[in-house]
């Protein structure tokens, strides 16, 4: 069940935000570093983990938002490795075949490499450039980067939507794309910050900045 959150609903969202106990350690210092206004704040995601939002304002028409997810914890890594190796040792005592132990080591190594390269996202970036487009980059823990760029001509709007995720109702930011055949219809909904999953307060900050640029873009665009 997905509904739009219009501007009037922001009041309700604000009240919700106050009701939820969010620990905010605001490191609010706009540092102009070589022509770029930078800002870093700390938020939390839907599970309670700590996220860091870094905002860079390059120019009035170009802004970047960078969300860093919590790192891979040593505790969970040790727990998984111990489980796998205990299970392998149990099988070894049953079968007396030492291949099982080497296979377990291989599986652990390959599994860890695969997890770091394909699953664990360290940082998610949203770069919005007026009259060019919106770019979303996900950086994985192994250094791989996957980028998607959406041209401004295809973007209809950026909204905050509600969704039911497992047993929670969460908010997520998404980009609505225009249908090329019929400009009034929405052809696709592209969610942003899917792996970081920040809470509403973080989303509102990003939403406000993006709406400023979109409003400016709509005011000066020459095409209908």
């Amino acid at each position: 069940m997905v509904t739009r959150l219009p501007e009037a609903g922001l009041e309700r969202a604000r009240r919700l935000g106050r009701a939820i106990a969010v620990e905010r350690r605001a490191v609010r210092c706009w540092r102009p570093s070589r022509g770029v206004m930078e800002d870093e704040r700390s938020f939390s995601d839907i599970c309670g983990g700590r996220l860091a939002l870094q905002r860079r304002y390059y120019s009035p028409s170009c802004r970047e938002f960078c969300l860093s997810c919590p790192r891979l914890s040593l505790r969970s890594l040790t727990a998984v490795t111990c489980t796998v190796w205990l299970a392998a040792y149990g099988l070894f005592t049953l079968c007396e075949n030492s291949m099982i132990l080497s296979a377990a080591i291989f599986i652990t190594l390959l599994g860890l490499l695969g997890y770091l390269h394909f699953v664990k996202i360290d940082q998610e970036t949203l770069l919005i450039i007026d009259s060019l487009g919106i770019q979303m980059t996900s950086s994985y823990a192994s250094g791989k980067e996957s980028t998607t760029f959406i041209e401004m001509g295809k973007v209809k709007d950026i909204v905050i939507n509600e969704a039911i995720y497992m047993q929670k109702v969460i908010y997520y930011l998404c980009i609505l794309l225009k249908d090329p055949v019929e400009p009034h219809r929405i052809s696709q909904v592209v969610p942003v910050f899917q792996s970081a999953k920040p809470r509403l307060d973080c989303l509102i900050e990003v939403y406000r900045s993006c709406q400023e640029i979109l409003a400016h873009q709509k005011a000066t665009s020459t095409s209908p």
Partner: protein
Amino acid sequence: MVLKAFFPTCCVSVDSGLLVGRWVPEHSSAVVLAVLHFPFIPIQVKQLLAQVRQASQVGVAVLGTWCHCPQEPEESLGRFLEGLGAVFPHEPWLQLCRERGGTFWSCEVTHRQAPAAPSAPGEDQVMLIFYDQRQVLLSQLHPPTVLPDRQAGATPASTGGLAAVFDTVARSEVLFRSDRFDEGPVRLSHWQSEGVEASILAELARRASGPVCLLLASLLSLVSAVSACRVFRLWPLSFLGSKLSTCEQLRHRLEHLTLIFSTRKAENSAQLMRKANTVASVLLDVALGLMLLSWLHGRSRIGHLADALVPVADHVAEELQHLLQWLMGAPAGLKMNRALDQVLGRFFLYHIHLWISYIHLMSPFVEHILWHVGLSACLGLTVALSLLSDIIALLTFHIYCFYVYGARLYCLKIHGLSSLWRLFRGKKWNVLRQRVDSCSYDLDQLFIGTLLFTILLFLLPTTALYYLVFTLLRLLVVAVQGLIHLLVDLINSLPLYSLGLRLCRPYRLAAGVKFCVLQHEAGRPLRLLMQINPLPYSRVMHTYRLPSCGCHPKDSWGALCRKLFFGELIYPWRQRGDKQD
């Protein structure tokens, strides 16, 4: 709208001159294609641009000036550059400037006519986007935007700005043909100005391919004419041709070879990729086939294989006999109807006896047959695998026969049972209305019907058990054949050339672009670097897959189970173009 100036990275450190490129008004972007250096004669520049416009159908024009000087430009130079705007009228007029050794640029835009609405101060911002000209020229966007033919300069507004940029650069090849060693009237700087890129091998291959293709195309047309002659349409050759997967595979390969050696040039890049992928697939196939051939013929492995074949067939027949003896006894503790059991069991045992005698008759010729079949591997691994699948089908023909007998018997029984069950309840099937209607039967009809129903019902377990056992055996054989066909399909349809291109030259297959913000200083225009975002491997596979033989499971799981329950014959791996049973 913010004005976007696309500037090639190869021209970043060239001397001052004029900017030559195309202006796209709908997206407010100026695509700079080359820099024209001083000194020049304006008439000759205009002639060159008119020639390029005619040859490439791209509206190239002088967009502005480029200034790359040791220190801040002097007043006189500034006025000279502005004066050039009068010689080459263009709206808007761009003035890019960069200090030698400095990182930051400055950019000014002059509009001749006053804008329609008074713009806010700082409105006319400029964004500099650097792009690698060679990569953008060679790359191809997916999905390909179909831009219709049009006059120089017009672009439909619905296409994206980036597609227009790619299209402009790709079609301006004629502008990049001259390099700095040419003695032409004007001196241009672009990605090929240090020397035009070409390859001797590619040129030689292009020259040689003409006559070679002609020769091979005529040979292939001869072969297809022979294969299409009337003899092959007569029964039983046409029946064999449709059932054997080897013939299907050979036909498929012949189609591929005809495509490769056809003398018609590929019209667009999709056809070119298809041709290249077909060539790569055929080469891989032949290479793997030759490897298999050398392995088979070395160290008399064929002899070993032939010696092992007859005992294996004997062993399979013996196991089947044991199975039938088991069924004729009390299989899994179930009690069978003795008479029917014995009849069916003896019938199938006689069949197996015939089969064993047939195999023993064939045994002296097996080695020769295998040797000649092994030679067929030089046509490709797929042909050898199809032959293997056909040999398996021939060797397990008796299992297929048993399955057909069991299924027909069971099917008959089920239909009889359902019809007599309706009679038992006083109903009947109305063929006209295609539904079940009530019907009044005579007493003797009811009596005989009920008797027959009881008989069929109590004989059902025996028939059902035989049917179950032989269906499982048949499904096993079908699964093995299906695996072989899947492998053949994989080799047939893998787009090797596209995958290799994605691995070695990722910029050729572009899913889109990505931007990177370069070092920025307040008050200067924003600088971005545009790079090609390569297509992910899954999309490469999906877009460039070659059409395969069509070996897909014909029925869904539900339909398959339904057919098995009612005893209808199943042919799960149906080839494309086969008639329904």
